[in-house]
């Protein structure tokens, strides 16, 4: 059973009055992460919206010890900290329960510049949780294309729409043979909470990716952050799944789409509600463009359905 909203703990690790935009999906997700991790944790951030949100020296909008590190190095720096606290505890210089070491990075710091260090940390299976809050672009620098930007999407560096599909990074992380991988979405806080609790209680490298629809980059009204997150799942553009020790399980509503109990909604409405897509869907090639995007989603659903059958 998914934890209900009323069962979620009171603890708040994201403090009111931080520097995030109104309606920010990253702080929305981080609040839930904080409820699952509690205060005994060390947070690493690479350049991203979360760094802009956390306040400027000497003010801090998160209630954890935090370290801002180089863009390329979330994975390796997290390894450094987890080894440091473990050895200091072994040598008797730290007492009590070991803190959870977690990274909080965007899709740029995960898919692109941060991938090498993350991949290596996962291959070493160092005891960390890597969170990617994925807003499908470099939103902090004004919305440029990343490896997580889907096909057909406007960004300031893909003014006529990105020509390539996004890569499936959660699956790539699973292929590192790490004990826990999950995808989540801010519209489903109970599901996210449960996944973070599992990750916290699993030794080794854990990867959790959270879809974070950014109203500024995606070009919708800031009150619609949760609605857009939900719509992404309903059309299959975002699949909710988790893999414990390599075995993939889909979570609802995605599980119903994968099993065929409920068809994914056509992607049209999802696209037309976002300026990043609909601004490019006004010409005679709109049908062709939508078909390409739909094709990417259909392929991904079919592929993940088959991939999940591999349990060896």
């Amino acid at each position, binding site marked *: 059973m998914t934890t209900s909203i009323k069962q979620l703990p009171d603890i708040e690790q994201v403090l009111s009055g931080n520097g995030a935009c109104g309606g920010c999906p990253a702080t929305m997700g981080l609040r839930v992460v904080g409820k699952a991790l509690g205060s005994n944790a060390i947070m690493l951030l690479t350049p991203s919206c979360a*760094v802009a949100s956390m306040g*400027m020296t000497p003010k801090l909008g998160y209630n954890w*010890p935090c370290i801002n590190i180089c863009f390329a190095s979330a994975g390796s720096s997290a390894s*450094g900290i987890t080894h440091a606290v473990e050895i200091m505890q072994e*040598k008797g210089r730290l007492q009590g329960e070991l803190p959870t070491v977690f990274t909080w990075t965007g899709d740029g710091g995960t898919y692109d510049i941060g991938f090498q260090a993350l991949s290596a940390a996962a291959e070493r299976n160092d005891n960390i949780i890597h969170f990617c809050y994925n807003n499908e672009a470099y939103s902090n620098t004004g919305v440029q294309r990343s490896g997580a930007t889907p096909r057909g999407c406007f960004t300031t560096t893909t003014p006529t729409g990105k020509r390539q599909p996004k890569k499936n990074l959660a699956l790539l992380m699973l292929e590192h043979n790490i004990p826990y991988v999950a995808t989540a979405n801010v519209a489903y806080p109970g599901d996210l909470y449960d996944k973070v609790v599992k990750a916290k209680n699993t030794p080794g490298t854990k990867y959790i990716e959270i879809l974070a629809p950014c109203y500024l980059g995606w070009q919708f009204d800031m009150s619609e952050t949760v609605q857009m997150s939900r719509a992404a799942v309903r059309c299959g553009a975002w699949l909710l799944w988790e893999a414990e020790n390599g075995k993939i399980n889909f979570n609802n509503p995605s599980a119903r789409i994968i099993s065929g109990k409920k068809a994914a909604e056509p992607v049209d409405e999802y696209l037309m509600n976002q300026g990043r897509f609909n601004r490019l869907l006004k010409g005679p090639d709109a049908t062709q463009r939508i078909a390409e995007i739909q094709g990417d989603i259909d392929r991904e659903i079919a592929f993940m359905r088959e991939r999940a059958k591999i349990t060896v």
Partner: protein
Amino acid sequence: MKAAQVTMETGAHAAALAVKSARVDVVPGYPITPQTSIMEAVAEMVENGELHARFIPVEGEHSAMAAAVAASAAGARVFTATSANGLLYMHEVLHMASGGRLPVVMCNVNRGIFAPWTLWADHQDSMAQRDTGWIQYHCSSNQEVFNTILQAFRVAEQINIPVMVNFDGFTISHCLMPLTVPPQEEIDRFLPPHEPEWRLDPAHPSSFSNVTNAPEYAPFRQMLSDDIMAAIPLVKQAAQEYKDITGMWDGDTIDTYRLEDAEVVAFAVNSMAAELRLSVDILREQGIKAGLLRPRLYLPFPAEDIINALPQNAQVMVLDRNYNFGHPGGILAAELKSVLFGRRNDITVKNRVMGIGGIDLTRRFMADEIRAMMDD
């Protein structure tokens, strides 16, 4: 009390033994010639339980330094090592270590820089990191490598500035020399456990290096600039106390040889400076009043000690194993001229670049060069 152990060791192994003696907690490492032997030795010491530490086999030097600074921020004593292009790959993170005031100690085993590839020693790699805010030592023997790493940890942790300990690839890193390892209790007396006054601590949450507006940013940079200069007395104090405890001495900020009455002063760093002692003897035999001034500390540049040590009206022959591109000659000569200007107008500075990419610097070759430079 146990007696000191004397064994034959390479410079790389001397470095690894110093890491063990310093009771380092975390060592992120990545192989690069000629540094690799240090990491191999440390990894083996960790595996066989000789050193109670974590060795993190990272996937590149950027990650090595990124893991090092983060582990240091968590409160651990941290060491890593690199060479040449590995050091260049770390460049961004070197600034994080210094700007963040994290007392990481790193060996850089000097090697020339790509392109074209070379495996052998020169000093372009470390001197290209001049403006990263690190303290830099240059060592001229295996024993000095060992001694300096211990002194480096002490200085770094006193002043919260990272320290780079440089020594030449192969000439030092791979050559066997006698090494004295003092008893552990002497080392523990010299280098107490690392107790940082700040660390990443969930019981006292605070954040490291948020975005900073100019009125706050500028003072951080000024403080780093001021404090790195304040390392000079600490370097001297560390050298003196190390001598008091272990009896070993490599010089403090500078090391000199037959300098008092010298008319011709060889000025160089690292292993070539050890060889230059023999060149000085050759020149003396030839009737030239030669001497040696070796900056053991390259950064902060020990300006006052150099100004005070140089004999009246000396000709200083700066032998640079690096290029100061965009200027004639090498980097050390430019540094020396900048500190002498207006202070010691009696001194003549002459400069040659030599030994690039590992060209062998023998005592005879350098003696001949210095004699030739007298006519430059």
